[in-house]
């Protein structure tokens, strides 16, 4: 069975998708780093207020795809793309599309926590401030709300003026999530957000993601199969720059259509 059939089958058979709205729609996306063909004919739809997990062995293009969704991939000078990605019906790969606009709507959390070397407060207020919100009171409220949203308010509320680098890795990662929330994005992209964290912090972040799902659409790249199974609604399996299979998480983990997916999930390679 070819992948195409598998994908179309998915679309046809899953009932609950019918009422879900599509946030991101990717059509025939190809991406090259210089001569390296990193993404090949990607077709993928991301649904609103779901957690979409992207899994696959190292180097298969997970991060690249994620970074294409907010065009951060363009920071690499040699990148070339073809195909179309629409975000809420706007084609975002067009040169004329303002990346800053896109990134205001789409937050991103990175593998290694990367707070700014500033106070916790300034970290959270950074986004609103650059977007022109100067009112101290509003900022205060945004900071509190975002920190609460990232369930770290209780831990840091008495030390908002301290440098964010004084926090533990897990706390720093939640600060980064809070920083995202502060500009109230629609989508949050997460690239292995827990891979640098210890198991306890990982659990807290996973719980948080479950919480956030109520208000945000989330795309998460993960190496950890269990994590994908635990928290995501839908899973895409990437291999060598291609989407091998994309389906509901339950389906992927219990009854994958492609045997490469099965091999990968059962740990036979990767």
């Amino acid at each position, binding site marked *: 069975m070819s992948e195409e059939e598998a994908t179309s089958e998915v679309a046809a058979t899953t009932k609950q998708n019918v009422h879900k709205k599509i946030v991101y729609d990717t059509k025939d996306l190809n991406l090259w780093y210089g001569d390296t063909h990193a993404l090949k004919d990607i077709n993928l739809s991301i649904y609103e207020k779901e957690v979409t997990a992207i899994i696959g062995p190292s180097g298969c293009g997970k991060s690249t795809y994620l970074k294409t969704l*907010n065009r*951060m991939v363009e*920071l690499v*000078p040699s990148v070339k793309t073809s195909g179309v990605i629409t975000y809420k019906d706007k084609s975002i790969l067009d040169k004329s599309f303002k990346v*800053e*606009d*896109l*990134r*205001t709507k789409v*937050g*991103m959390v*990175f593998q*290694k926590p*990367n*707070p*700014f*070397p*500033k106070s916790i407060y300034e970290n959270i207020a*950074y*986004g609103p*401030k*650059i*977007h022109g919100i100067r009112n101290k009171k509003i900022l205060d409220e945004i900071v509190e709300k975002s920190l609460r949203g990232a369930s770290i308010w209780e831990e840091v509320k008495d030390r908002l003026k301290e440098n964010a*680098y004084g926090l533990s890795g897990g706390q720093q990662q939640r600060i*980064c999530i809070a*920083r*995202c929330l502060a*500009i109230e994005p629609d989508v949050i992209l997460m690239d292995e957000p827990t891979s640098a964290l210890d198991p306890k912090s990982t659990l807290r972040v996973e719980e948080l993601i479950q919480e956030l799902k109520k208000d945000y659409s989330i795309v998460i790249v993960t190496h950890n199969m269990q994590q994908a199974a635990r928290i995501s609604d839908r899973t895409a399996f990437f291999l060598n720059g291609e989407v091998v299979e994309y389906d509901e998480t339950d389906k992927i983990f219990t009854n994958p259509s492609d045997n490469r997916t099965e091999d990968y999930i059962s740990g036979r390679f990767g």
Partner: protein
Amino acid sequence: MALDNKIDNQDKPSIQDMIAKKKNGKNLTSITEKVIPVLLFLIAAVSIFTTIGIVYTLLIETIEFFKRVPVMDFFTGTALKPLSQNPEFGVLPLINGTIISSIIAMLVAGPIGIMTAVFLSEYASERVRRTLKPMLEILAGIPTIVYGFFAFTFVTPLIREVFPSVEATNILSPGLVMGVMIIPMIASLSEDAMTSVPNAMREGALALGATKLEVTFRVVIPAALSGIIASFVLGISRAIGETMIVTIASGSSKNFTFDITQSMQTMTAYIVEVSGGEAPAGSTIYYSLYAVAMTLFVFTLLMNLLARYVSRKFREEY
């Protein structure tokens, strides 16, 4: 093994035997081994001797100077008339000239240097950076005498074209040219500081919808601040110690004034003037050479130590 046999067959000694035989005559090697470190130690000590030499010569003669001229008169005097019948040795005109020329230089080199650093580290593509940077470094390699010539024969006349009230020798022109000379230093040190800010930091900000400008001013520059400050301090130190440009283009008036259109003398230019007149050993003016040099030495030393301290102390942990 084949090879072993080959040598043994020909009744040759094994290599280890040869080595052992050579070893007997190898006292030389062990002597070398002992002598070399001592020799190298002595050589390394030259840098210390140089420092001691500088401090010692300056100190001894400076003390002699202060036996003749009270310390207070030197550091608070606004009149410098070393050759006059009633000589006065106030160093303030020189310190004033030094500071003013350094300020002018830094007003040029500071902003332009840091803007250059921002452009190279944040905006320029790799290729542009690779072409522009070495070209800027040429600027740093031009001998100061050439800058002096340029200031005197080109910049000053140009300034006077626009502002005729400016004197033929003035502190403005050498200050500006000195600034140009210092640009590459500030640009390259600041750029180093900025490029060492991890990319993760930039990505974090860009992902929030920040423009490059906002990333630069709100993330990169604050994070690289210690390095940037250190580059400024080193730039000032360089300006304070610069000699030929001011000597040629600022004349030798010892005015105590803040009017940058006038001629002023810096500490370095004073040393050139006095030693160019070959002050005879033993005269007060001769000793004043050392007192001024000592002041200059202490100034720049403090600046250099400050730069090291700043870049070490305030390095952000990221």
